[in-house]
Structure formats: C-alpha cells, structure tokens
C-alpha cells in the first residue's frame, strides 16, 4: 500500500528506486506523475522516454509505456514515437548531461521543429551515474571528479537555450518547489509544442559532497532560500540576482507544431485515409 498517486502511476514492485538517499529525482518523478494526474490524462496514451544517467532510470518505475533509450538520444526516439503516433502524450525524462551534452543536438532541433514533446530535465548539475564528473550545468568554479581544480567551463541556462532554439514553453522548477514545478510540467504537457522544464534536483552524494553543499536537507533549504520567481527577477539587477536561482515560467508563445503541420502536408498531397 502506498499513496493513491503512487499506486496508480508507479510500478510498485520496482520500488524503492535505485537513487541515493536524499536524491531529488524521486521528488521530481512524483511531480511528473502529479502533473499527469492533475491533467487527467489517459494513462494508456502517455509514453515516458528517457536516455541514460540517473534521471533516466525514472522510466523503469513509472507505470506507462516506457522506454529507456541510449545516452543523449531520448528526444530523437521520442520524435519518432510522437511523429508516428501524434495522439500519444510523449514525455521525455532526461538529465543535464543526457539532454544538453551528448544529446544537445537533438534537444535544439526538437525545439526548432516545435514538436509536441514535454522535456523534463532532472538537472542535478553533475554526472551522477558515473560518479560525479562536471556537466554542462555545473556552475563555473564548482568541483567534479573531472574538475579537480574547479570547473572552468561556462554553464548552459537550459530554458534560455531551449527558447533560443525555438521551444514554445520553458520554465524552471526545483526539488523543493513542488507545487510550482508540478504546475510547470502541467503547462508543458498542455502546450502544443516543445516544452522544456528545467527541474533543478539535489545530488547530495556527488555534487553536494564535492562542493560542500551539505546534506539533501541543506541543499533543499538553499533552493527554498535562494529561488526568485522569474517575474520578480525581471525587475532585479544582475548584481541582485547573483547567487540566486530564477524559477517559474520563463517563456510561452504559440507557434505551428510539427506533427500537426505534417498532418496538413499529408492532407495536401492526398495521402490522408
């Protein structure tokens, strides 16, 4: 016996999950289920697609049609599923390395096409599965096992990247801000186009330990105390935003959606049944 939400949307025989104590991914995975539940989606028409890494183990726990693909390719697999069967709600669960490093090309081009996928990034700022190497979202100066002297890379702002590439809905949530994050995922699913929700997780085991961020509780308190809503952030100076984490809805506009456009093309050339 577990809560109704867990009963309905999770494969309980596979729980507890493999994530470390205090890993924010469990919270974010529940957020995805909560968003699906709030929207009342037909669970038989929901497909979860993941890549490789800590984030991507989510697919195995969620009770839908789920596919755990290759590293970086989740969005490309999802593109095939969605274009083949546009009636499906296709949700991609990916990580910062999976989506923005090895899968960066698929990410930007899915955004450019504005194909109706909801990309939920479980962003833990590190490669967790391989033991704590720096990722495209590791802040400059932070440490990883492959950044023993501090990371000199500049990091990606994922919602900004997605927006620039053509995504029509972007936002950022955190492991701490559950209701807000659930709402962002809901809006992402509702948006007819490419939506990207950057969900800042907590990784106490690798990122936290390497960077002296304290326990999972400490890391979540940091999120609570330093998050600034995007609307408020818009009127703040760069100086005031230093060390803050901007969360909330960042961008939303309507543009033609890829699979709908393709359907029009089929009708135009007389291929519709």
């Amino acid at each position, binding site marked *: 016996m577990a809560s109704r939400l867990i009963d309905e949307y999770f494969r309980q025989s*596979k729980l507890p999950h493999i994530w470390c104590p205090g890993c924010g991914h469990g919270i974010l995975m529940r957020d995805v289920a909560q968003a699906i539940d709030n929207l009342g989606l037909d*669970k*038989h*028409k929901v*497909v979860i*697609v993941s890549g490789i890494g800590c984030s991507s183990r989510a*697919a*195995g726990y969620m*009770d*839908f*049609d*789920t*596919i*755990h*693909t*290759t590293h*970086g*390719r989740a969005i*490309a*697999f*999802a*593109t*095939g*599923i*969605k*274009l*083949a*069967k546009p*009636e*499906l709600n296709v949700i991609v669960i990916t990580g910062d390395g999976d989506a923005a490093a090895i899968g960066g*090309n*698929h990410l*930007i*081009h899915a955004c450019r096409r504005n194909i109706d996928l909801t990309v939920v990034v479980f962003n833990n700022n590190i490669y967790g599965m391989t033991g704590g190497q720096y990722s495209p979202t590791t802040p400059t100066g932070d440490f990883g096992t492959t950044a023993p002297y501090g990371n000199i890379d500049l990091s990606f702002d994922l919602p900004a990247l997605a927006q620039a590439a053509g995504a029509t809905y972007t936002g950022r949530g955190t492991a701490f801000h559950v209701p807000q994050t659930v709402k962002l995922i809901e809006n992402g699913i509702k948006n007819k186009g490419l939506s990207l929700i950057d969900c800042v997780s907590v990784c106490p085991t690798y990122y936290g330990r390497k960077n002296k961020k304290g326990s999972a509780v400490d890391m979540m308190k940091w999120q609570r105390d330093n998050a600034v809503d995007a609307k408020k952030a818009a009127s703040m100076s760069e100086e005031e935003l230093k060390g803050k984490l901007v969360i909330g809805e960042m961008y939303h506009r309507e543009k033609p959606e890829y699979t709908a456009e*393709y359907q029009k*093309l*089929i009708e135009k*050339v*007389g*291929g*519709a*049944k």
Partner: protein
Amino acid sequence: MAEKRFALLQGNEACVEGAIAAGMRFFSGYPITPSTEIAENSALRLPQVGGKFIQMEDELGGMAAAIGASVAGVKAMTATSGPGFSLKQENIGYASAAEIPCVIVNVQRSGPSTGLPTSPSQADVMQARWGTHGDHPIIAISPSGVQETYDLTVRAFNLAEKYRTPVILLMDEIVGHLREGVELRPAEEMEIINREVWDDPERARHPYRMDEGQLVPKMTPFGEGVGYNITGLSHDGEGFPTNSNEVTNAAMRRMLDKIEKNLGDIVTYEELMLDDAEVAVISFGGAARSVMGALDKAREMGIKAGMFRPITIWPFPEKQVRELAEKVRHIIVAELNDGQLTLEVERVVGGRCPVSHLGKIDGTVLKPDEILEKLKEVSK
C-alpha cells in the same frame, strides 16, 4: 509512380518503392551520398500514402527516430552510407538488444572515413556484422540489381518483423545508382509479414518472454494500453533491467539463437553455372554483376567456372559454402574491399580448397576481364 507496374528506376528509388509496398510508413534519416535518393524519394512518396518522413539533425537521430516509430507500431526505415553507418551503430545495437524491428539501408561507398563519397565499395561487410559493440543478432542482405533491391527491401521488412531485429540492406553505390526496369509487384501479390501482437494485455506486459513454439516473443506497440518497459540494459521477460547473470545468459542465448537456429529460413543465395564448375567465384551485390560477365567468357575459353552469390551476407551461408568447397578445386572471392568476405569464406572453407581474394580498394569496380584473368590464373 506506385500505380505503374513496370518502371525504369534507380536502385535507391526501387528501395523506397519496395519499402512502401512492404508497409513502411516512417522514414527518418540524414542526407549522405550515395544514399540520398532514398531520403528524397521517401520525402516525396511517404505523405502520399499517409506515412511520415523526417529529416533528422544527424545520423544518430535518424536511427533513433526510426526505432521510436517502430516502437509505436509503424514500420520504419533509415538509409545511409559509410560515415553515417558508423554513427548509426550505437542505436543499431539498441534495436538489436531491445528487439525492435527496423530496416537500415547502407549504400556502401569507398572508405575509410569520408573516403571517396561517390565511388562504390563493399568494405562495410564486417561493420554490418560487428559494427555495434557486444555480441548481438543481426541480419544483412545484399541485392545485385534493381529488381532485387525492390524484392529484398520487402524481405528486409519481413525479416525484421518476423525475427524482431534490425535488418541491414547492404547495398552499394553500383546498385544504388544503377537504372533498370523493375516490376513493382503490389503488396497483395507478395508475402507481407506484420508484427504479431498479444491480445491479452497482461501477457503483453512480458514482451521478452517467449512461449513454447514461438520464434520470438510478440511485441505490442506503445499506446495500446499495455504499459510495458523497453531498455537497452540487460533485461528480464518484462523488459526491466536486471543484473542477474543467469537471466542475462538466457536472454542473450534466446536472442542469438533466433537467428542461428533459423538459418534455413533466413539464408538465401544464388548459384550460377556451378553444376560442373571447377572454379567457383563467390561474389555479392554490385560486384557480382562483373562476375556474370566474366563467367560467359571463361566458359567460352573452356574454364569451368561458376558463381555462388550470397544474398544473405549475415548470417553467412556457411553450410552451402562448405559444400561448395568440397566440390570445386578453387574458390575466388571477388569483392570491392581488401578481403572482408574472403576472411569469412576462408574460415568456413577451413582448407577444403584453396581460396583466393580478388578485390578493389581504389573506388573502381572489378572489371569482367580482371575476373577472367584471375580465373585463368587459378585454372592453370
């Protein structure tokens, strides 16, 4: 185009027509010489039959999206050439491990690396077998002409669905750009194999558990209310990751056996003038066309030569080639590479008769006269 029964087509065009006849309704790929006409014609033809074409951002995406479409229950194909074939290997391995039917066309060009992009080659023979990491089942079939490209593309889809595996249509630039008359037999006149699905959703939750008498476990498309898992990790009957060595061993054995124990169904080949032959030329794909030219001349000169043409390259027709080696005095392997199929033939022949290699690595084709010279040399 499809309404016509007879047409003058390029191999690449015939491939698309064959695919559509076989039920392909999804193509995802990336432009690359000399396979690009396959993407172009798919873009043109698929929407006309209600199918989908997507030009992906790269070769990896082209392979991944095709697998995704197949998971959703739509017959899918991608096409490429050498450099792109290298990039696709990652997800070919995934399709093999997760047992997702799909067709990958490789119109071989001269390599390595970017090589001679517009020149023919057959140097991806070993890559077609072992290009992706790990032991894995694979089928590769190779057409020698335009009609055969049409027919074998249909067969590629049939094999993919029947054995739940990626199938490589190993073409080459010669056949891809060759124009010949082709009969576009409609689907109703051909055997078209469609995926077997479970009626019982509870049973469908075990897409990797095989019942007795089954060739492969059935697989229900996503979106049909089953709710199962697919992974490239070693998995159990339900498709969930496992670390069990025992479960892994059983799953691997089942996957490899589905090909190895059905060679009689999968392996096809052509024998030409072999009844009384003293020398056999083994050749495939575009190269086999040159051999045909050489055989007539050899016969005129009194050399008893014939040809064995594997149509299924992988699994290799081991039994047939071994029997051939018992019959002939010499085997020549004529191929557009430095001896890849020769290696396999030597392994299979195991010293039963001498095996010579005749190849090209400069981007040109083997000429009939060159084959004739070799035939004369070994017949002395």
